[in-house]
């Protein structure tokens, strides 16, 4: 990537903040949909049963831990790849 000057850095910074917020919202919605899809399969009642509720709580926990772990590995791999000169085209 070409190096950016200070004002370009600031503009990119503010773009990045909006993207980060958007990424958080997408992550949140993915979590809702994924745990709903995995845990809710009974429609004989309109409120969550206690089994469903604890499934949802464990699902959220596990997904957050999984995301964190994959995020760490992803950043390590990226750092290693940059150190070795990036993707082959670089």
């Amino acid at each position, binding site marked *: 990537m070409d190096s950016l000057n200070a004002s370009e850095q600031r503009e990119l910074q503010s773009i990045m903040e909006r993207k980060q*917020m958007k990424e958080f919202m997408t992550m949140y*919605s993915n979590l*809702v949909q994924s745990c709903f899809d995995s845990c809710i*399969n009974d429609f004989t009642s309109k409120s969550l049963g206690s089994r469903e509720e604890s499934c949802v709580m464990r699902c959220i926990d596990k997904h957050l831990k999984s995301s*964190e772990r994959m995020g760490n590995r992803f950043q390590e791999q990226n750092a290693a790849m940059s150190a070795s000169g990036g993707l082959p085209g670089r």
Partner: protein
Amino acid sequence: MSFLFNRPRQPSSAEKIAAAEMEVDMMTDMFARLAKSCNAKCIDKDFRESELNKAESVCLDRCVAKFFDVNVKVSEKMQNDAQSAGRSPAAGGGGLFGM
């Protein structure tokens, strides 16, 4: 999901519009996901009739209610986790930017 939009100081016009826009985007996205999940769980894929039958209609109603409940659970849990970690919810949760 208003906890995502709390701001410490008086927001500018652009910020208020961006926040309102983001809330609408969030609702639209949530509805699209709910519709996808509830259609998959409730609608018979044979399409032998063009009307929703009784079972499908009831299933859809309950499915929407339960999707809302799951949404509330996720929202509560992320706020609790964030509070016990002493940071804003948007800063947590891991993932690519979750630092």
